[in-house]
């Protein structure tokens, strides 16, 4: 089993990992790699982090249901949920402690033990040079508030001592890869990425880890925050570009990743509430672009020299569809279109009294009430919310018309799909079931996902042409 350890640093790392999870659910291929997400954010009680953990658990549950064959395990499906995801804790057969290890309620001043420095100690002046009083008095429970100078100190120790880092070094095998997701304008991501990279490349006692093919995506500023003086927040998005330039200057000479991807906006298009405790930022197109970097990385081989990658859109418009984004986004659009069609099946099939697969494959009332299908329903609600946020954000990712199942030929804007309504897909689903004559398993949930994907892909593959 080849693996990719995906280190998600800070709030941006969490949001990008959410997009990765959604794309994996939609059928985007990880080229045979099992994804092992490792979430690094010292921000205690961050709702986003808890939600991501819950989303990952939900994905894993659905995946397990799809490959379950009693006492044995089937191969991964083609299409929806086709790739395995495992947490570092599951991989190491221990509790995942990335959430716990990051928690710290003390102030930074106390963390670095400033109180023990004598008044005449020259290190006092050193500390005052590097950190403001605000920095020193900030509680670490809400992260580093856009201060990478604080993050660098805390994260370094956090990484070194963490069980998950030890587990990563133990479980990283030949052909495994590493991918790091971070922002360049925050506190955690900007400090965490180079630190983590350094720790990995510096693992002389472990050549497999040291030489692992490494990719990273660093996200440039893509949103602003409301004036901090109105909210009492310490985070000021007016500094984002300044911090970015400073970080980029540092990266220029220190980056050790084989592939470094950049994603960002030229202007801060969306402005969110400046609440350092909640950080309720809706899903953004840039996060989706950053997520696509992982899938691109997994298709590539070891380069002769470092590669710096980015991607653009064709037209600078407020609401993006397939034409304005460009043909490079076809796979993403197809995946999202596929899952949103699947959503119509999930909503409507339980009410279809005479759907043939009810008799042929046992997709009856009991099946739809079962744990497997219900976990899919819950995941799909989150998926819909995610797509809704993307499609209504400032720089909207909105390639679909998904309002009506009676007029589905326009499901993907700018492309005429041959399926006029949902009955076209249902017919193909029935045909797929009739064609499948193997008796290798009786996993109804797997049948549902497999035949649904065949049906949907039969029409939406037109997007890729």
């Amino acid at each position, binding site marked *: 089993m080849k693996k990719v350890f995906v280190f998600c640093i800070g709030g941006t790392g969490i949001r990008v990992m959410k997009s990765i999870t959604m794309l994996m659910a939609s059928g985007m291929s990880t080229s045979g790699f099992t994804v092992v997400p490792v979430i690094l954010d010292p921000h205690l009680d961050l709702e986003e982090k808890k939600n991501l953990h819950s989303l990952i658990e939900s994905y894993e549950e659905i995946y397990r249901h799809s490959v379950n064959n009693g006492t044995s395990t089937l191969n991964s499906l083609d299409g929806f949920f086709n790739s395995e995801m495992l947490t570092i804790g599951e991989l190491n057969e221990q509790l995942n402690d990335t959430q716990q290890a990051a928690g710290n309620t003390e102030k930074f001043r106390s963390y670095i033990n400033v109180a023990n420095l004598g008044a005449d100690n020259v290190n006092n002046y050193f500390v005052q040079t590097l950190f403001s009083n605000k920095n020193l008095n900030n509680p670490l429970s809400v992260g580093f508030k856009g201060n990478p100078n604080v993050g660098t100190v805390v994260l370094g120790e956090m990484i070194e001592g963490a069980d998950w880092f030890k587990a990563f070094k133990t479980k990283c095998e030949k052909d495994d890869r590493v991918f790091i997701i971070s922002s360049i304008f925050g506190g955690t991501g900007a400090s965490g990425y180079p630190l983590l990279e350094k720790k990995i490349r510096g693992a002389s006692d472990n050549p497999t880890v040291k030489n692992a093919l490494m990719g990273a995506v660093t996200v440039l500023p893509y949103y602003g925050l409301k004036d901090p003086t109105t909210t009492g927040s310490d985070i000021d998005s007016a500094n984002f570009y300044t911090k970015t330039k400073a970080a980029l200057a540092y990266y220029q000479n220190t980056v050790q990743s084989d592939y470094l991807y950049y994603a960002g906006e030229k202007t801060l298009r969306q402005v969110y509430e400046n609440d350092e405790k909640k950080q309720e930022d809706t899903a953004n197109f840039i996060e989706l672009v950053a997520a696509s970097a992982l899938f691109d990385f997994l298709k590539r081989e070891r380069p002769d020299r470092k590669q710096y990658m980015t991607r653009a859109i064709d037209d600078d418009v407020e609401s993006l569809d397939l034409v304005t984004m460009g043909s490079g986004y076809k796979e993403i659009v197809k995946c999202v279109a596929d899952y949103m069609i699947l959503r119509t099946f999930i909503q409507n099939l339980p009410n279809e009294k*005479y759907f*043939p697969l009810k008799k042929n494959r046992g997709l009856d009332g009991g099946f739809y009430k079962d744990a497997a299908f219900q976990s899919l329903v819950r995941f799909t609600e989150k998926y819909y919310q995610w797509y809704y946020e993307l499609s209504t954000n400032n720089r909207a990712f909105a390639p679909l018309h998904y309002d009506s199942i009676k007029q589905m030929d326009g499901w993907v804007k700018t492309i005429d799909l041959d399926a006029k309504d949902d009955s076209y897909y249902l017919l193909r689903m029935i*045909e797929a079931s009739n064609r499948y004559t193997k008796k290798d398993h009786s996993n109804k949930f797997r049948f549902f996902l497999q035949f649904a994907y065949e049906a949907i892909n039969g029409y939406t593959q037109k997007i890729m042409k």
Partner: protein
Amino acid sequence: MKLLKLYQWIAGKLTEFCAPFQNNESLYQQARAFWGKLEGISTILLIIAVVIGVLFAVIYYKPYNNKPGRHYTPKYWVIFLIITFVVAFLLTLGFEYISVAPHLKGAMLLETKIALGNGIYASALYFIVSVLWCNALPTNAYRLFEF
């Protein structure tokens, strides 16, 4: 083959048909001749019922359910049943009219009753073929009659 007896339950017997003409020898003989001609085409009438019944079942379970539109629901099976009945009835009546023109009093009614009977036979065959199909043959339709 004399298969008109298969329609006796709806069309009655020769004696019942000829009874009104007892007092007129010429009309009586015409009535008997009319019945005889119907007897002569009775095999074809039954073939019409069989063909229509089987044909519409095949069309429903194969090409019709190879098209989208939720054709697998029982609603469309019932629609096809009705179509089977109507087509069998009209075809039978038309064939009878062309082959044995009903000039006598009561002849049209007799032909209509035979056509109705044929419609019912065709519908019954449609049902039987549906049951067989639901249990043994491939289809995209809902197997309404699967045991």
